[in-house]
């Protein structure tokens, strides 16, 4: 028989003004199983808690109901108090007679009656409460960071500086990401490479960072604190330990006509290459698709000229398993292209802008490469078609972004600012040139952002035209831009030498497949979903996985770096403990009843349901049942409501407890 103690709080006068607390205490005291009931002015105060603890010990109470404010307010407080008095904290429940009763009713009689019923309901519930042991899982204090752009670099450095080992995996041959491609950055116009490359070197030299470049995530298993990640290290064809980075192989490679993707195909690179001179690691990779040796078997020049003998044509992909406790996803973004898309694709291209076939219509990133001092033109703004300096340049914003017709409805956030920056860079480099910008609205929220945009108009003399462009076409060596100025209400035609499109920010290619490997959710554009838009913006709903940078949504550099550091802080919070404690509100499977239909697995938002084989003593398989991994379970209980045989139960919210409450009414 249970010995329940009920404690009714006055909350000063907040409750007692409308609820007759003495009567509630008296009435509830008569309920079967209630051994003790009392009321007190402030239950949450020190003396109140003292009263509670004393009663538990003196009255040998088995369960406790505190009738006071909302459990959202003080459930933790009272459960802690109960625990310190030697009871399992989950044997304490709160009855909400303030927010749900005294504050919302005026009639004293009605309110008192309701309070009695509410407390009665919780008394019946608490009788069915079970002792729940706190769940602990061990934590592997190593972390995986996926993506070596500025987000991944920042997160990796923060975590490693805290003393924890980091495995950084980058798909490209070098870390650096998009930021390494940029010329100068808004709103301060500092050189991107100057601030980026030191950080890249820090990563390379950090004793706590294990760097895998030219590598991808193959497979992820496990759960928070205990992931097993398989990394595929693609064959580089160059031994990283032997290579000294002298670069002779690159200069001697006879195949030099491969478009350089890092330079947005503006320049050429050899088949054995580093993407850019400041690459980290400074170890070349052989592009096997374009290498003569791999295509025809003849050549082998690089191997012959390599002093240390690092070139290895026989090298194969390697699979490496890394145990980690937390994962930071920082896969970044990709740029939308206006090219014709395959039939049936949800994203469409821009036929009205020539489907990318007009050579002097380029995108913003290509302009960055033109403007970059280390770019293919040495920082000169020159047309790709004939290498002439464009005297009239047109920038068009919102290309792809905010265009539901093309399949993308969102704002890409960074284009207004980088276009303003482009007009400035252009004006600095081509003094007699004129920049025009077609835009809808300038979105410049951010410190010093609007001032920056205004400067491009007021001081750098960019002409901003509020209106969009209907069509671009080549006419001789000019590009005719057919736009409109909606402020004046006229059509505007500009014969431009070059057109720069501010194309939309999209998630990295393959973002969806990586998400499926990780078991994290993503939106219809394949941006990764955070657990809560406001309060948990860097965590995934899947425990132990965190987001940093543009893989979660379009972001500029300051936002990306902030989020990366935030994700790192989350990882460090996790690593601060040796064992992971979590609320034991998790689902458990009653194996005897489970028929293995796995409906629970279909509805589980966390992927917490696994298969478990039940065998007899001889080892013969009897049946396969569901098993809920307590480390992964989020505790929503959807499985329980779905289970046809009622064989899964959510601790803390069992059918028994709920039916007891309903029956009390």
């Amino acid at each position, binding site marked *: 028989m249970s010995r329940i103690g009920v404690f009714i709080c006055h909350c000063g006068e907040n409750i007692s003004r409308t609820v007759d607390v003495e009567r509630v205490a008296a009435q509830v005291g008569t309920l079967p199983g209630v051994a003790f009931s009392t009321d007190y002015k402030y239950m949450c105060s020190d003396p109140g808690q003292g009263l509670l603890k004393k009663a538990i010990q003196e009255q040998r109470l088995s369960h406790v109901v505190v009738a006071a404010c909302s459990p959202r307010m003080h459930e933790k407080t009272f459960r802690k108090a109960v625990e310190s008095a030697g009871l399992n904290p989950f044997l304490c429940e709160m009855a909400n007679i303030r927010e749900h009763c005294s504050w919302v009713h005026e009639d004293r009689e009605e309110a008192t009656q309701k309070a009695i019923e509410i407390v009665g309901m919780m008394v019946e519930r608490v009788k069915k409460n079970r002792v729940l042991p706190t769940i602990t899982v061990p934590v592997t204090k190593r972390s995986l960071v996926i993506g070596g752009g500025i987000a991944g670099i920042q997160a990796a450095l923060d975590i490693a500086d805290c003393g924890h080992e980091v495995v950084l995996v980058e798909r490209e041959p070098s870390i650096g990401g998009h930021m390494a491609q940029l010329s100068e950055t808004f709103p301060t116009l500092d050189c991107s490479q100057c601030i980026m490359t030191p950080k890249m070197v820090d990563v390379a030299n950090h004793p706590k960072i294990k760097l895998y470049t030219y590598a991808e995530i193959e497979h992820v298993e496990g759960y928070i604190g205990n992931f097993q990640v398989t990394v595929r290290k693609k064959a580089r064809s160059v031994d990283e330990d032997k290579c000294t980075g002298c670069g002779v192989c690159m200069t001697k490679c006879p195949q030099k006509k491969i478009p350089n993707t890092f330079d947005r195909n503006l320049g050429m690179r050899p088949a054995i290459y580093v993407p850019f001179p400041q690459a980290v690691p400074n170890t070349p990779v052989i592009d096997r698709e374009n290498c003569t040796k791999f295509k025809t078997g003849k050549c082998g020049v690089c191997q012959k000229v390599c002093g240390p003998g690092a070139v290895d044509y026989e090298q194969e992909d390697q699979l490496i398993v890394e145990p980690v406790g937390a994962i930071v996803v920082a896969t970044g973004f990709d740029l939308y292209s206006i090219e014709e898309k395959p039939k049936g694709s949800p994203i469409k291209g821009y036929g009205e802008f020539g489907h990318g076939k007009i050579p002097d219509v380029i995108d913003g990133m290509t302009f960055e490469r033109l403007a970059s001092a280390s770019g293919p033109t040495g920082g000169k703004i020159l047309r790709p078609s004939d290498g002439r300096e464009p005297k009239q340049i047109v920038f068009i914003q919102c290309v792809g972004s905010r265009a539901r017709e093309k399949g993308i409805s969102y704002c890409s956030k960074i284009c207004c600012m980088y276009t303003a920056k482009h007009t400035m860079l252009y004006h600095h480099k081509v003094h007699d040139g004129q920049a025009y910008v077609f835009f809808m609205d300038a979105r410049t929220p951010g410190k010093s952002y609007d001032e920056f945009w205004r400067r491009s108009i007021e001081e750098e003399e960019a002409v901003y035209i509020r209106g969009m462009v209907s069509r671009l076409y080549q006419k001789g060596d000019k590009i005719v831009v057919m736009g409109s100025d909606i402020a004046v209400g006229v059509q505007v035609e500009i014969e431009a030498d070059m057109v720069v499109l501010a194309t939309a920010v999209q998630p990295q290619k393959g973002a969806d497949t990586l998400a499926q490997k990780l078991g994290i959710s993503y939106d219809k554009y394949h941006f990764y979903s955070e657990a809560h838009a406001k309060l948990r913006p860097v965590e995934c709903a899947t425990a132990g996985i965190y987001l940093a940078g543009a893989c979660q949504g379009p972001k500029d550099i300051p936002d990306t770096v902030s989020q990366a550091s935030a994700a790192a802080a989350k990882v460090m919070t996790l690593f601060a403990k040796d064992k992971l404690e979590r609320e034991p509100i998790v689902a458990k499977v009653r194996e005897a009843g489970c028929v293995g239909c796995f409906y629970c697995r279909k509805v589980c938002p966390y992927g917490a349901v696994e298969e478990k084989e039940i065998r007899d003593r001889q080892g013969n398989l009897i049946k396969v049942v569901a098993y809920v991994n307590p480390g992964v379970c989020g505790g929503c209980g959807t499985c329980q409501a779905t289970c046809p045989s009622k064989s899964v139960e959510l601790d803390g919210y069992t059918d028994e407890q*709920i039916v007891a409450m309903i029956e009390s009414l």
Partner: protein
Amino acid sequence: MHHTEKHNFEPKIIAFVCTWCTYAGADLAGTSRMQYPANVRVLKFPCTGRIDPVFILKAFQQGADGVLVSGCHPGDCHYIAGNFHARRRFAAFRKLLEFVGVDLGRLQFSWVSAAEGGKWVEMVTDLTERVRGMGPMQEFRELALEEQWSGAIDTPELREAYNSI
């Protein structure tokens, strides 16, 4: 200023709510000192996904005259997608209930976020008034008796038949 008049019939309303949105919304109604009829009893669940339709039947059986089910707005679920499963489940369940002959006016599904104290008050008030107008719920009390009858295996014939299966 809320109802001081007494009614002949005070319906019993049971609300099944999720802890993250609607329970918090009801809390907000309290902290904002809004007033609503005292007929509702709130049962807290982690998520609407946990709410088994059987609970609704059970509530009616236990003498509830109206039942309210409310959780996070679609897409806002704390547990990613629990409320989507709930929505599907209840869409089917409503049909079933209608088929059985329950007036669907007694059952309300809705979404109330943690910021919607006003909506909570409005909904509870509307449902209470509506159910008050409909009178006490009779159907399921009889059903409860029936269930007990069919549940018991208290004759030797029945026992034999039961054992042979």
